[in-house]
């Protein structure tokens, strides 16, 4: 039974002519213990998908089951507790609180769980040791390097022992060495049983994943299982086309990869595209009908 199960999940922003379809009837099942890399060009809905899976955002339509439990039925307090206990977030922009030192930052989720101060600081210290920051406990975040901050953020994500780690471009602001350290950490977590969802623009990083999901215009256009340590075919192709040098190159590479799709599997991509067009108009209809109801 999948730990995460999305059925026809859509997310719309705005209304009327200005409606943006950020997610377009996405269907996705993720089994416990999977390491899923999510790729796709800018604006394709990767962050939106992560936010919905991470219970930070709600889908406009569709059903989301977390451990076979319909998420729509959760009250706000229960959603917060699910975020706290079951999901750990790692953000591209780190999102540590600048006014708290590293140790307090890592211990913060435990505060919300009601763990006593001594115990929570002990646990936070343990986790900082695990990410190799035991000598940076009392530093303020702005005194750390990007890689160190991200490791602290990973320690924070782990402090409540969550089943799912959601990392939205965790290496987006890091140099290649720091990226490697962060990826090794995520990979290690995955090995010890965590389900990891990671958005990345860097095809090379998909080697850590055992599944790669490609998004385009709010839809999943390709979903392939890969062996760990190998870069999937599709990603490889973009790498060969554009030898990686910088983040922009990655972006360009991913976009290029998307253009490659129809050539590689023309019929499938075409089908997806036409289906998507239909869906888009259907979604628009839905919006209209709800609007009519409101009036």
């Amino acid at each position, binding site marked *: 039974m999948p730990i995460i199960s999305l059925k026809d999940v859509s997310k719309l922003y705005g209304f009327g002519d200005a409606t943006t379809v950020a997610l377009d009837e996405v269907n996705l099942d993720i089994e416990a213990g999977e390491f899923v890399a999510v790729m796709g060009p800018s604006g394709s809905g990767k962050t939106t998908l992560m936010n919905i899976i991470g219970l*930070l*955002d709600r889908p406009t339509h569709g059903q989301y089951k977390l451990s076979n439990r319909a998420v729509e039925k959760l009250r706000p307090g229960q959603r*917060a507790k699910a975020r*706290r206990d079951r999901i750990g*977030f790692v953000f591209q922009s780190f*999102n*540590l609180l600048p006014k708290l030192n590293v140790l307090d930052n890592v211990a913060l989720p435990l505060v*919300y769980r*009601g763990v006593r101060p001594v115990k929570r600081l002990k646990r936070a210290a343990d986790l900082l040791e695990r990410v190799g920051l035991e000598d940076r406990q009392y530093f303020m975040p702005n005194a750390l390097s990007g890689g160190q901050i991200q490791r602290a953020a990973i320690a924070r994500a782990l402090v409540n022992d969550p089943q799912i780690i959601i990392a939205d471009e965790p290496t987006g602001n890091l140099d290649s060495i720091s990226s490697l350290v962060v990826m090794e950490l995520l990979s290690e977590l995955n090995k010890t049983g965590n389900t990891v969802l990671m958005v990345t623009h860097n095809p090379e990083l998909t080697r850590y994943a055992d599944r790669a999901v490609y998004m385009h215009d709010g839809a999943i256009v390709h979903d392939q299982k890969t062996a760990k340590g190998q870069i999937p075919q599709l990603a490889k192709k973009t790498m060969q086309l554009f030898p990686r040098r910088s983040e922009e190159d990655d972006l360009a590479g991913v976009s290029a990869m998307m253009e490659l799709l129809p050539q590689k599997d023309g019929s499938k991509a075409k089908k997806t595209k036409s289906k998507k067009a239909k869906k888009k108009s259907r979604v628009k209809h839905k919006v209209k009908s709800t609007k009519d109801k409101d009036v």
Partner: protein
Amino acid sequence: MYSGNYSFALRIIRRSKWQSFFTMFGIIAGIVSVVTVISLGQGIKQQIVQQVSQLGSDLVTVRPGNVVTRDKNGDIVEVNPNYAYGFGSGSLSEDDVDAIASSDNLADFSAISLLNSGASSGDETYNSGFVLGTDVNFPSIINQEVEFGSYFTTGEQTRSVVVIGKRVAEQLFKENVPIGQSLTIRGQEFIVRGVFEEFASGILGQGIDLNSGIYAPRTQLNSVAPQSTQLVRVLVRPDQPANTDKLVKQIDTKITKLHGGQKDFAVIRQEETIQITGDILNKLTGLIAGIAAISLLVGGIGIMNIMLVSVSERTHEIGIRKAIGATNRQIRNQFMAEATMLGLIGGFWGIVLSYLVNYIIRITTELKPIILLEVIIFASVVAIIEGVIFGTIPAIKAARKNPIDALRNNA
């Protein structure tokens, strides 16, 4: 469970000290005014209790001015504050004194006249006091000892001698025991023959410091400054405490008759002075309470304002906290803690400032305000409650923020 909300709040408040100070200014002002007024009242009440115990509860005071309005039973229904403060003036005469002297049930009495004038001695002049014309009964009727020297005797009623209060000794003669020295009033030289013990404040009425008085024989003072003195008090003691009411009625009837039915004087029993002062205090307290309420409201709005600013400035922080699992209630509590902390700190500084104001009042006036522990506790509670009340709306606003919108707000 300790969540660290309060220490975090403290850090936030320290970060923006000046902003926080202005926010708390309203609370501080409100607390200072409430504490000061209540402690002034407390001090005055304390004085009166002392005064009653010094003068004896059977002492009857006749004084100029229609200080009180009474009902048929003789109970006070209204206090006229215009007449109640200071000596009063004008409406008593020697005839009234004679009428009082001829009353039944009278054990003792002492008439006091006022010459609103200073004195000089050599090159020194003394203008911050007054001269009282008294008789030999004066010290015994107000139960006041002469510390150095002695009071004048019956035989000296027409001699130029004075007994002085301590402030006069200090300020005019620059010494504690200027006995045998002389001072000049209206061109007449008076020999100092005694110095009174320190007077408690408020003995003859609020706003009168008897330590700045020069006490001369009334007969002699009248001849030195004819037409210039005014009778301001006649202190009367009944033969038995049980006859106090009888005596009061007699004097009242007699003087009313002498004044052609006009109630331009007051005959007051000691315990009534508590009522009179209490009444004045209540009017004053009502006024200041209004001011205090307004400043507390302003303070509260200040808290609300800074908290709203804080909530919107820290939207991103709220987003992060929610992302890692803070519930709406926990976010609300965090901001409530901060508002409460603002109230508490405002309350603390209000109390500190109240003590300062208290000290200043003590050294610059003859009032002796007393800050009671109850008032301090009350002020602290008010400050905290204020933080809670005015922190609620901002805290709810913070708690209701949508996590993803808050997280995206990266100011």
